[in-house]
């Protein structure tokens, strides 16, 4: 690898999140990783809770994970029909990085490759220019679907 210069903290002037989903056929799980800017998430949680969460710091509150989970459940829905009930998601863990923080979640669902729908409103209450990208992989097939303020409910598959 050519290394130009490695330093820097990361400033972003754009509002973006990425959800990567991979269907594990053996376990019947849609294994998902949500990549989101932690400062944006803190702002969003600040609007719905009075708790100081200090996300991503040494002082991070014990309530942080449950608040994040509640926020994701509220703003990210996955279903097998357009008006269907949102699938339950299970919190698996998180991984801090210097830019987008990764939150690991599982959707337990026996998927036969039929239609899947998503409603992704993550952080859209904060930013008009928020864009959320969902990447879904099923075997060798993959798909990218973009969600924004005007269009936050789409067929994924």
């Amino acid at each position, binding site marked *: *690898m050519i290394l*130009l210069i490695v330093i820097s903290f990361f400033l972003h002037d*754009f509002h973006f999140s990425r959800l990567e989903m991979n269907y594990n056929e053996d376990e019947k799980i849609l294994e998902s990783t949500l990549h989101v800017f932690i400062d944006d998430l803190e702002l969003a949680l600040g609007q719905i809770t009075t708790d100081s969460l200090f996300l991503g710091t040494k002082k991070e509150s014990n309530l942080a994970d449950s608040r994040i989970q509640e926020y994701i459940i509220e703003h990210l829905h996955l279903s097998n029909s357009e008006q269907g009930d949102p699938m339950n998601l299970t919190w698996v863990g998180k991984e801090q990085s210097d830019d*987008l923080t990764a939150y690991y979640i599982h959707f337990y669902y026996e998927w036969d490759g039929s239609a899947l729908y998503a409603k992704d409103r993550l952080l859209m209450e904060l930013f008009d*220019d928020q864009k959320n*990208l969902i990447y879904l992989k099923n075997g060798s097939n*993959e798909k*990218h*679907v*973009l969600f924004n303020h005007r269009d936050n409910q789409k067929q994924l598959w």
Partner: protein
Amino acid sequence: LSEFLTFIELGCDHILDWKGYDHILFLLTLVAPFTFRQWRSILILVTAFTLGHAITLFIIGSGYVIVSTDWVEIAIACTIFISALYLLVKREFKLNAGIYGLTFIFGLIHGLGFASYLKAIMGSGSILTPLLGFNFGVELGQLIFVAAVCLLQYLIEYLGLFHKGAWIKIISAVALVLSSQMILERIS
């Protein structure tokens, strides 16, 4: 095709986003000295710039290069400052190999500026579609902006709103002020 369009949309929106105005400010300084009738000069300069940032975009997208966002952002602001200064002090604008070369190098630097965004949008899947689509979107956004500026300059000339020289000085002064501010903000 919908995959490709998704990344075209991301690239086009990113270049035309007012918060990322440094790229379009540089394009403005590039296009400002020319009239609508000198479209060949505009085309050649914009192509040199495009070629430059397309190369670095692909290198970054392939993951072989890691760049410092801080230094790149400062360098981008410097490219705008230099172009604006050139516009301010020059009386005649003649294109030569030196100008093309410098524009190409500035393009390489601006391409590095997309690193953080590319890093965010590219996940663990295949890189070809995202990279090609994003690059194509950036070019499309640039084309839209350059066409709009050309049209504006044509109208200004046609309606006699500004003398061409005055228009160039206004653009250079605005670009100088904004790029100086960017440099100071990004250094501190």
